[in-house]
Structure formats: structure tokens, C-alpha cells
């Protein structure tokens, strides 16, 4: 094909040709797996079930999910983790960002400390905190007993305590990312606003609520949206800290899917669970974007 011919047909053909590689790649790595997942969710695909054609089940898998106690338990845990850790990380992150925004002479140690939790691998953070919350040799119990607490609390061996420990670890890990976005937002606020408020006689508290928070709102919303989406997929930290235990009291949806597919080798049912998780995430994110996004 000569060059003139290529230019002749229309800009449209060229545009399609240029878009084709990206489209093919996306179709291969995004569209095909999701399509295959939805397809699998209608079949009985137990890898431990011997040989033979996979049996078509229709909506049987979905009916099973509806009656599955483990699924609702995992869904409840996932939503609870999201509801606790997202606002928690926002508050802690905002505090860290405000502290890091003070005019220091040497900025790099503070900036590095702000970045470090974000740069650590999730599973690494989970393992460190599991060691912190260890009943016998953990530093948390040691500090608590030094402060005068009589009985040792079995952090990772009691459902509610394990849940609290996991939430603390997640908040520590994710507040760093929040603080980073909020720090960037804080630095955009013009200093003149505070000077004007000072002249008008506003105190620090009023300045915080009337200037800092409204000016920071776009950054807060971006941070909240990112954080909520990743909180719904929580896997690494609960997996490395408790493996969902004790019982399944700290099991999230992603962990249940992993257990069903990898440990129980039930690919069909695991796919159904994954589709359900996808739908739940989609609903929450859509509602959330509509609510929160409308405020900008």
C-alpha cells in the first residue's frame, strides 16, 4: 500500500489502524479474562472432580452464592474494612500531611518517612504487623504490659481483636498514600488566604475548617476514591496476618475467592464468587462516585 493510498481513504482508517495494537492488547489481557470468568461461572469446574466434560449449571452457582454463609460473611468483612480503614486512613493521612507541611529546614527525612509505608510491599507490612501483634513476643503486648495493663490480650487469636489489628495495619499502610496526595493539595493553597483570615481575626481552628478543608476538597475526593476502590480488594494484609482466621472472622471477599479457587480447586464456583465481588464493587463505586463526585 502506497502512502498516498493510505492517506486517501480517510482519517478514520488511519485512526483505526493506529488504535488496533492497543485494542488487541486490551482485548487479550482485559476483555478475554473477564469474558472467560463470566463463562466459567456458569459451569461446574471442580478440578478435583475427575475427568469429563464440564457440566453446564446455568444459574445454579449464583443460587449457591446467595445461600452461602461464607460469602455473606466475607462481604460483610470487606465492607466493614472499607468503612473503617478509609475514613481512618483519611484522618491519619491528613494529620501526617499537615505535620509534614510545616516549614522544616531539612525536608528529606520527613518526606522519606511519609513515603516509606507506601513503598513497602503489602505482604511485607502484613508480616511485620503480625509480628508486632504476636501474643507472646509482640511489641504491642510488651508496651501495653509496661504501661500497666494486667492481662495479655491475644490480638490475632480473638475475632474482634484480630479485626482491629488488621484495621490498624491497613490504616498505617494506606495513610501514607493519603498523606502524599493531601500534602500535594496542601501546598497548592495560597498563603494569602491565611493572611487575610488572620487579619479578619480567625483563629487556627476556624482557619482549618474554613480554608484548609474546603481548599483541600478536590484532593480529599481523589484520595477517597482511590482508597475505596483498593479497600474493596483487600487481600494481602489479612492474608499474611491471620489467613482469615480465627475461623473465617477476618476473611475478605478476595481471600474467599482465592481459597475457593486455589485451595479447593473449585474454579467454577470461584468464578461465580469473583463475578459477585465485581458486581458489589461496581455498585459501591458507582454510588460512591455519584455521591462524592457530585460535590466537586
Amino acid at each position, binding site marked *: 500500500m502506497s502512502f498516498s493510498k493510505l492517506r486517501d481513504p480517510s482519517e478514520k482508517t488511519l485512526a483505526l489502524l493506529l488504535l488496533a495494537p492497543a485494542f488487541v492488547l486490551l482485548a487479550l489481557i482485559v476483555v478475554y479474562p473477564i469474558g472467560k470468568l463470566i463463562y466459567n461461572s456458569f459451569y461446574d469446574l471442580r478440578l478435583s472432580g475427575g475427568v469429563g466434560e464440564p457440566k453446564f449449571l446455568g444459574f445454579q452457582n449464583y443460587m449457591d452464592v446467595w445461600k452461602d454463609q461464607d460469602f455473606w460473611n466475607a462481604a460483610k468483612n470487606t465492607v466493614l474494612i472499607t468503612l473503617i480503614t478509609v475514613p481512618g486512613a483519611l484522618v491519619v493521612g491528613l494529620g501526617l500531611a499537615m*505535620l509534614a507541611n*510545616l516549614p522544616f529546614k531539612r525536608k528529606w527525612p*520527613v518526606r522519606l*518517612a*511519609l513515603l516509606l*509505608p507506601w513503598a513497602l510491599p503489602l505482604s511485607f507490612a502484613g508480616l511485620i504487623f503480625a509480628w508486632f501483634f504476636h501474643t507472646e*513476643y*509482640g511489641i504491642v503486648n510488651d508496651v501495653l504490659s509496661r504501661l500497666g495493663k494486667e492481662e495479655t490480650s491475644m490480638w490475632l487469636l480473638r475475632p474482634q481483636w484480630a479485626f482491629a489489628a488488621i484495621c490498624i495495619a491497613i490504616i498505617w499502610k494506606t495513610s501514607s498514600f493519603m498523606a502524599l496526595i493531601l500534602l500535594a493539595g496542601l501546598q497548592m*493553597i495560597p*498563603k494569602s488566604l491565611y493572611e487575610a483570615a488572620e487579619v479578619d481575626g480567625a483563629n487556627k481552628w476556624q482557619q482549618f475548617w474554613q480554608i484548609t478543608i474546603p481548599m483541600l476538597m478536590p484532593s480529599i475526593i481523589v484520595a477517597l476514591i482511590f482508597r475505596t476502590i483498593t479497600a474493596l480488594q483487600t487481600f494481602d494484609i489479612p492474608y499474611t496476618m491471620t489467613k482469615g482466621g480465627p475461623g473465617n472472622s477476618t476473611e475478605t471477599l478476595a481471600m474467599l475467592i482465592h481459597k475457593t479457587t486455589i485451595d479447593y480447586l473449585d474454579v467454577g464456583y470461584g468464578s461465580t464468587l469473583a463475578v459477585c465481588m465485581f458486581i458489589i464493587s461496581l455498585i459501591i463505586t458507582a454510588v460512591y462516585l455519584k455521591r462524592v463526585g457530585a460535590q466537586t
Partner: protein
Amino acid sequence: MIQLPSWSSRQLRWVAAAIVVFNGFFPAVWILLTSLKREIELVQKPITYWPHHLTIQNYVQAFTVLASPPHYSKLCAGLYRSAFAYVFGQ
């Protein structure tokens, strides 16, 4: 930028820096200290904050194990995978 509040003397700024640095570095420092302890010290009560006997035995062991055949291939596979993800993730 937040202007310097009137109560924020130099000491208060130090406290702020200390809080942020402690929050960020504490787990990493704790793991570093743990890696320098002898194995027996890890399961000692009351727990020790500073290693009683500094040792690099854990590091020697880690690198010896990594360089031995079954793990060496895993290490290489991991590096290849990281490189692949880095190149195609851009």
C-alpha cells in the same frame, strides 16, 4: 502552604518531624533490629528492644541459601519476572 502558627516554636516542629519519622520508619527499623538478633533472642520473654548479641549470621544464611541450586533458580525467575513486569508495565 500553612503559615507558621504562633505556638509553633522550633521544639514543636521537632516534635512534628519526630512523629512523622517515627510513624514511617518504626516497622522498618524494628525488622532491621530483629534481623540482627540471634534466633534464640526472638523467642525470649521479656522481649528485647536492642539486640544483646549483634550477629550477621541471618544474612550469611540468607545469601548462602539463595545461592544454592533450588532457590537460585527461583531468585533468577523472580528477577526475570520483575524485569518483564517493569518493561511491559511502563
